[in-house]
């Protein structure tokens, strides 16, 4: 929730400082709207008027993400609790509720779409890039475990039959999991072929190593 307060002071600056003190925020974390600039009046007595400002906490990436997602879930008639943690330019979002399968979709397709759209909304018109990660029911973690197991199993098969294996099309995130799982396996090598969205990982026997041996 964005905090907001209206304050008065002898000068605009005094009023702003009073507001910052009450909100517990720094100057760069707020937007200031001057309602009345005030007037010191003659000799500070006749016709003097206090300055009045409205100081509002700036909209954060978290606010933007939360607003965007809750609007979407409302229109989808889904009751979803959105938990957001922000750390080192990463918005870590976890969704809780029933029917989360709808938000995951086939192979996480819908979750990926939501994550991508949220990152566009959060970063629109901003200089600093904030990464967005969305998960529900531990889907991404479980999927990662599945992919690591798959990579290791297929690498064994590649070595056993001495033949390359081409995997199903995957998104960049999933391909990276396959590559990094087998990165330290000196017996095989991995690379990607094809164009998005049909780009696939190939696991092959590391022929360079064979020559060296």
């Amino acid at each position, binding site marked *: 929730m964005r905090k907001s307060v209206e304050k008065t002071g002898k000068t605009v600056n005094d009023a702003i400082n009073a507001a910052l003190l009450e909100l517990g925020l720094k100057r760069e974390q707020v937007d200031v709207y001057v309602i009345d600039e005030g007037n010191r009046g003659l000799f500070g007595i006749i016709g003097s008027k206090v300055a009045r400002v409205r100081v509002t906490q700036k909209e954060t990436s978290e606010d933007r993400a939360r607003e*965007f997602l809750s*609007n979407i879930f409302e*229109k989808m008639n889904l009751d979803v609790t959105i938990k957001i943690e922000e750390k080192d330019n990463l918005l870590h979002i976890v969704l809780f509720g029933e029917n989360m399968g*709808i938000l995951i979709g086939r192979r996480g397709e819908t979750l*990926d*779409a939501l994550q991508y759209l949220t990152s*566009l*909304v959060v970063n629109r018109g901003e200089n600093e890039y904030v990464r967005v990660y969305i998960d529900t029911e531990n889907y991404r973690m479980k999927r990662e475990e599945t992919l690591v197991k798959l990579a290791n199993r297929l690498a064994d098969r590649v070595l056993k039959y001495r033949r390359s294996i081409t995997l199903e099309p995957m998104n960049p995130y999933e391909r990276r999991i396959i590559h990094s799982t087998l990165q330290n396996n000196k017996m095989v090598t991995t690379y990607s072929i094809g164009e998005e*969205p049909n780009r696939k990982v190939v696991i092959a026997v590391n022929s360079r190593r064979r020559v060296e041996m």
Partner: protein
Amino acid sequence: MLKELLEVIAKSLVDHPMDVSVNEIEGEQSVILELRVAQEDMGKVIGKQGRIAKAIRTVVKAAATRENKRVIVEILQ
């Protein structure tokens, strides 16, 4: 509901939310949603190689599955 969902998504992505409009053509089992945005916002709803358009369609389709409907999202010039 699908119409409003598409509107919400499109309005959050573009620079001119006032120029976003969605026309809904309702069939028996399917819905066609025609999305119009300001000319300079076309890129904001289509993206490189249609990546944004694809993500929008994926989310709208997920919502439609809940209502047992087939949905087609058309982005009009």
